[in-house]
């Protein structure tokens, strides 16, 4: 399988990757860059576990081919905060007890991050709508929705 070189920006750092024609952004992140915070579940764009920001928009990285990303800017969960320096949103997830097993949480945080960047003060229906593409089987949904609301309200302070 022949490979193509793409140069792109990931979490603010330039990277050159040799990727095959069928390789997804998700697999490139997980296997070439060891950015394993982005999770793989359904691999068909239905569960949202692999959500990342592509040029600022939330996308399912399992549906994006890596070869198409020359010059693109990608933000993954690793680019949002660290365990000792959480983003306001990440802290709100913990404050509201929104994390159970945690497998869906990176994708959930990325989807919510994109929403708040887009609309700092979304109403409850908008939050529900914008997170409806991210599945949580522990179904921490009520607390996840509250966490996004909390982070949104703190944006005023």
């Amino acid at each position, binding site marked *: 399988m022949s490979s193509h070189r793409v140069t792109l920006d990931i979490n603010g750092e330039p990277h050159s990757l040799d990727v095959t024609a069928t390789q997804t952004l998700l697999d490139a992140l997980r296997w070439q860059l060891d950015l394993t915070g982005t999770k793989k579940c359904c691999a068909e764009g239905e569960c949202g576990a692999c959500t990342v920001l592509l040029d600022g928009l939330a996308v399912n990285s399992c549906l994006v081919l890596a070869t198409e990303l020359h010059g693109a800017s990608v933000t993954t969960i690793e680019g949002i905060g660290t365990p000792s320096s959480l983003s306001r949103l990440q802290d709100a997830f913990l404050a509201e007890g929104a994390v*159970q097993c945690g497998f869906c949480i990176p994708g959930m945080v990325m989807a919510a991050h994109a929403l708040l960047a887009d609309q700092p003060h979304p109403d409850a229906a908008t939050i529900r709508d914008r997170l409806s593409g991210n599945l949580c089987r522990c179904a*921490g949904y009520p607390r996840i929705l509250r966490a996004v609301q909390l982070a949104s309200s703190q944006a005023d302070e």
Partner: protein
Amino acid sequence: MNSEIVGASVRRVGGQERVTGRYRFVGDLRLEGMLHVKLVGLDCAHARVDAVQADAARSLPGVHAVVTENDLPRPMPRFGPVHHDRPILTTGYTTYHGEPVAAVVAETEELAAHAAQLVRVDYTELPSVTTVAAALDPTSPLVQDPDRRSGALAFTNVLSESRFGWGDEPGAAELVVDEAYVFPMVTHFAIEPHTFLAAPDHDGVQVWSAVQHPFALQQVLAELLGLPLAKVRVHAPDPGGAFGGKQHAKFEPLLALIAQRLSRPVRLELSLEETFQAVRRTMFEIRLRSGFFRDGRFAFQDAECNALLGAYADIGPRVVSKSTYLMCGPYRVPSARIHVRALLSHTPPATAFRGFGTPQVVWALESQLDEAARRLGIDRLEIRLRNLAGPGEEFMRGGKPADGDWGISLRRAAEEVRWSEPLPSGRGRGVAVGIKASATTGASYAIVRLHVDGSATVLSGTSDMGQGARTVLAQIAGQELGVDVLRVRVVMGDTALVPFDLQTSASRSTVFMGSAVRAACQDIHRQLVEMAAATFQLSADQVSVTGGLVQLPSRKLSFAELLAEAFAGVGGEVIGIGSRRGEHVGTHPLGGPPAFYEFSATACEVAVDDETGELTILKHISVADVGRAINPAQVESQDEGAAIMGLGHTLMEHLLFDKRGAVRNLGALDYRIPTTKDLPLALQSLLTENGDGPGPYGAKGAGEGGLFAVAPAVASAVAEATGAVVRDLPLTPERIWRALQDTKDPSDA
């Protein structure tokens, strides 16, 4: 120092790693030089494998092996938690859709997948058994080879059959209700698909699996590989959701054999579709014939339960026996006859799934009770209260008496939906309860190390699959040792490091492992008393210890101050050991009485669109009798999660099979689970805390109950709103709409 750590909703231990994507789940682990495995299956359930042609795949550069049954020991080793019926790799036949016939091993995941497509399997498709009716039909093909079974049932698809009951022959009843209820197959759909790694380890083997029972897996591997337990090291990173689907060994034995054979680490990540085909919930058809007196009390119950297991037993027989043990629920039933069959079929193995058969049994029982209430003209809450066992009452002859005041939770649930107030038309309310026999036998050991600075390390074999065991165990150690939760490390998931724990299931960990951790801390207390007495030349009775503080006749000092003094110049730590065991009782039908009952009440209010059959849940209340919540926010979040999972099987989930026994709705596109858009408009979990549990501080287990009674409560509300009674799950709009048409006067049509 915070003296009340237990009972506080402290933040989840391990939370920061999860919100930042830093926690390494099993699929995120990378081993030096590892190869990738892809399984090869067929597109039908039951087939004879005539030939596996793998030369094209084997000749690809980077492909290391294509493993078939011919490469594995003969006779093929088999394993399983109840019967040793599951082969490491199938021999000669496939018995369910997706059962692998070969495993490709290659340098990359992509190459393994490509090579797997080049493996040609010549096979002859055979008729398959995928329903209860087919499994009971004596002319159906046999799922398992009779030569590998024993007893009179070997030539049938009945894996096991039992009859039990109590009381005299039923006398006269005012009303007899006789109905059948169906609870379909559903799948766990943990967001983390199953992933396994194995590596040779000098004279042993190491395996990584997000397994709920690492010690059970270690035992299976040791037996199959002929290794001592000490040479089998199972690493069990915290599962990314499990719900019962990650209890028992699946492809770990295959991976371990491949790793040994190739002398290389190997990795297998199942796709979500393959995860659906690995295990699923036990499907039940239950026919109930219940007699009632005029006042709504049970006169008798006569149940015929047929549970459809898969091609291998897995833990299915235990699911069936344990759930039907409480076929009469928490109610006083003077006379019961319960007939239970566990059936084999050409479907993926049925295993544990949150509730362990309880939601299936509760669906039938509670729906039946509603039917009786309607026909007798008794309020649905009232009929439950009239039959419900009171505290301490031996409601099941010879069984453990009621260990909770369950009426409190039932009334609370009903009050929260304003049970007695009138409703507008098109709306309805439902209330239902569920009860589960919790963990029976089994041992849990814990080690707690108190370090010289007063911080602590807890070693525990429990798996934290999202239920929050790490947090609860850290809170218990924190409470007992007077140390902040942030200064406690909980080490789990490595059989070479942590002491034995039977399993993480049945909501047992807070009660069993929590008690073990508390006992280990009390062991530390005893040692500290001796240490203080020796250090300060006192007698032991002059010293006392409470959380974090040593009381001497003249002064108090912290644990850290005592250790600094006692260990000066030498160093050291205090190691406490604790355990909790549930002993085997041969005469008990479950092998031992349950440590506690998990009791839950659900109430809801719904609106039904009678044009479309669409259902809106306006309010959903879940009340859990938890004894004592160690971490209330965590308990509530689990209970809410269980309620939402229950809405999945109530409203939308079921695995469908085609005529060839293939699963028609594999994967997230065709099998829907609840999303944020499917939530009730209001959802609340309430805890009943009476301190009456057998666990630490009066705790009971929790976390499953919230889904026991969701389906009957919602169905009951639908019946009130529309008059339509549905006895098959899920309550899809189509099913409700069809039931609505049946209730309408035919002359209107």
